[in-house]
């Protein structure tokens, strides 16, 4: 018995504070949140316990998912994620490909491409709100004015003020901030490919395109998957940028994370919690298979 304590005691001592914390603050709170999402706590009096609340099962979810407003949020989330993912993957890959071969001053290019990652979404939102100003013609400033100056005036548009696709404009700053990150992932991927592999391909007479298509791309697929997972889950949680560029009350740019905040601000805890659960499910669908797969490959 004492020997077992000697063996198990110290590691358990080191890790148990964190295990308890994660258990309570991640899994415990998720459970409580699910419970709250199934109550009718829609008013301040109920939220503070001064009025009774009842258990209503999935009623809030049915109401939310059936409402036009929330469907609009989900549609926005989908569009935002699509534009954000495609944008960062294309730019990140392109930059990595450009920087893969030795070039004078490559370090400077790399640092500049990556630097927006170090800035908060709130700070970059300040400048992007200016850039994405919807005024056109005489009153135009921001990107619309720049388009006029460089003779591309026809590109002027009202950016995020478009009800249907405005959210795609908010993806622009997101792409600006995170393409460098995807580039860094791809660069690490490129550099992990042994030079012999390229040489072998060249000796076999593969064209540059075929070399990429059949030798390099397959080697990069784990990196690409990691990038999609990371950008994808960030995108699903997008909140800061919209708060900073648009406003929480703006219908055209709302997403579930914003709805959650708006519900909470009016003490509608049940719907707020329900939106949280929906977001969790969406993220889990993306993340859980990836984590399981990663754990499996590590084991082998």
């Amino acid at each position, binding site marked *: 018995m004492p020997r077992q304590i000697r063996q198990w005691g110290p590691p358990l001592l080191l890790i148990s504070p964190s295990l308890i914390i994660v258990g309570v603050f991640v899994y415990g709170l998720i459970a409580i949140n699910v419970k709250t999402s199934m109550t009718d706590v829609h008013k301040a009096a109920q939220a503070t316990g001064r009025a009774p609340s009842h258990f209503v099962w999935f009623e809030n979810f049915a109401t939310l998912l059936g409402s036009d407003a929330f469907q609009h949020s989900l549609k926005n989330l989908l569009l935002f994620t699509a534009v954000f993912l495609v944008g960062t993957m294309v730019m990140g890959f392109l930059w990595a490909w*450009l920087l893969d071969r030795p070039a004078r001053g490559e370090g400077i290019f790399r640092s500049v491409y990556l630097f927006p990652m*170090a800035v908060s979404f709130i*700070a970059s939102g300040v400048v992007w709100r200016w850039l994405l100003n919807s005024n056109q013609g005489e009153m135009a400033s921001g990107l619309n*004015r720049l388009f006029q100056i460089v003779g591309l005036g026809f590109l002027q548009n009202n950016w995020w003020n478009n009800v249907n696709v405005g959210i795609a404009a908010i993806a622009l700053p997101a792409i600006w901030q995170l393409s460098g990150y995807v580039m860094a992932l791809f660069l*690490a991927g490129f550099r992990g490919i042994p030079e012999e592999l390229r040489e072998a391909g060249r000796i076999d007479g593969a064209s540059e395109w075929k070399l990429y298509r059949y030798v390099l791309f397959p080697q990069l697929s784990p*990196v690409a998957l990691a990038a999609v997972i990371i950008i994808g889950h960030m995108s699903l949680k997008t909140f800061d940028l919209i708060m900073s560029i648009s406003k929480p009350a703006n219908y055209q740019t709302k997403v579930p994370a914003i709805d959650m905040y708006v519900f909470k601000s009016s003490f509608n805890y049940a719907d707020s919690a329900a939106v949280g659960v929906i977001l969790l499910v969406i993220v889990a669908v993306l993340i859980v298979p990836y984590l399981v797969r990663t754990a499996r490959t590590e084991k082998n």
Partner: protein
Amino acid sequence: MTGLTTDDLAAPLGRAGANRRPRARKRYSVARTLRYLAMLFFLLVVLIPVYVLVVTSFKGIGDASPARAWSLPQTWTMVNWRDAWTALAPAIARTVEMVIPAAIISSFLGSMNGFVLARWRFRGADLVFTLILFGMFIPYQAVMIPLLQLVLGSGLPNGIPSLIVLHVIYGIPITTLIFRNYYQSVPNELIEAARVDGAGMLRTFVSVVLPISIPSFVVVLIWQFTSAWNDFLFAVFFSSSQNGPVTLALNNLANGALLQNYGVSMAGALLASVPTLLVYILLGRYFIGGLMSGSVKG
């Protein structure tokens, strides 16, 4: 020191073709020029917002016309910077008070967890690690309502004290991940040697493992510093502009100055970004190390 250098963690990108790639042959020079032009083009595009931030922050009332949106200031003025500093200085001070303890405490927790999970094989160790890791990916919206009630009920003061605790708690997954990946690369002989000398796990951790962990401590500290400094979500739920960090104060400043004076908010945005940009410029290698660790496989 066992060949574990800072480079293992901090320089996963290396230099292009360092010592192994034959120099591109001369006949590709047209392609090389095109490539260079493309690189320069993207460099300029990425820097457009920086130009706007800097130039607008020095503009006075006389430059307010949209026609002068992209021009340099007619007269350079420091007024915006002074106003922004007055508005943000208290919040910047509070953010410093928040990020330093948050980063240090979560680094130590991560180091302990990482060591145990990398070295101690028990049934279900992978499951435990995956369960911790999942905490990194959850949308915090899914815990926010009960978390609000819990923090309120605990009597923890709103503002910086609450935020320190939250950043420590929700920093555990990422810090554990970075340290675990690092400790898996520590040679077994080092740990074995300590055990042969009669050191238990705790002693081994304190006197053998911690001293060689400095590189990953730097990576983790930078990571936690940056994410706590840039956090807005917890800030907006758990503090107000009177007692909250700089992201919240900046957002309020920008909303207040919305229509008229972009200059103040641009100066404010630059001020609020100085610490993380400095870290990025001075310790960029470690910053990238943290980014890479974020991709799970490390």
